[in-house]
């Protein structure tokens, strides 16, 4: 079974802090994704990576950056956290771009 793990289930940070969210997958998948999920809005893509050191912006990349130094690990970075970044963050991976995605358990981030 594919397993996607995220470094924290819950995180509370202060406005202006730099925040790192880590995601690791164990199935050698090429593609990894970061989404945020807000009530009534569904999942929105922040960034996508299709290979080590390769990335594409999603629909809402402002205020975020990513890093993929190893195939199994994809990190999301909030350069200067703001209250409007309070959300559930979900990481996912897939074997091919047009195949199903496997999601981690999510990190609920609160910025105060």
């Amino acid at each position, binding site marked *: 079974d594919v397993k996607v793990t995220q470094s924290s289930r819950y995180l509370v940070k202060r406005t202006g802090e730099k925040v790192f969210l880590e995601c690791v997958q164990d199935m050698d998948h090429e593609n990894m994704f970061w989404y945020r999920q807000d009530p009534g809005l569904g999942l929105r893509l922040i960034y996508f990576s299709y290979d080590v050191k390769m990335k594409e912006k999603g629909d809402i990349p402002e205020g975020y950056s990513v890093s993929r130094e190893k195939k199994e690990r994809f990190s999301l970075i909030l350069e200067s956290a703001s209250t409007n970044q309070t959300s559930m963050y979900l990481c996912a991976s897939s074997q091919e771009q047009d195949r199903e*995605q496997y999601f981690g358990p999510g990190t609920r981030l609160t910025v105060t």
Partner: protein
Amino acid sequence: EDQVTQSPEALRLQEGESSSLNCSYTVSGLRGLFWYRQDPGKGPEFLFTLYSAGEEKEKERLKATLTKKESFLHITAPKPEDSATYLCAVQAFGGFKTIFGAGTRLFVKA
């Protein structure tokens, strides 16, 4: 613009009461339509992929169908453990993005 609309937003059923969830989509060339289940506080779990109109997939009490404009997730004789949010998502040819709907929250009462 590619778009996915799910209805209803919430559905309350009695145990054993069959029903359907709807997913309407607008996409410039459908590459695939996906259904996921999401339990509270957890990440979505993959259920089905449908690629072409007329295609059907089944898993236990769930059956997904696809037309050129919409997909249905039919739930036959649901049980309380089927309570969850069901997400529909689409991918278009020529892109890497998966567009998700806002989901339908299903409550099944014993």
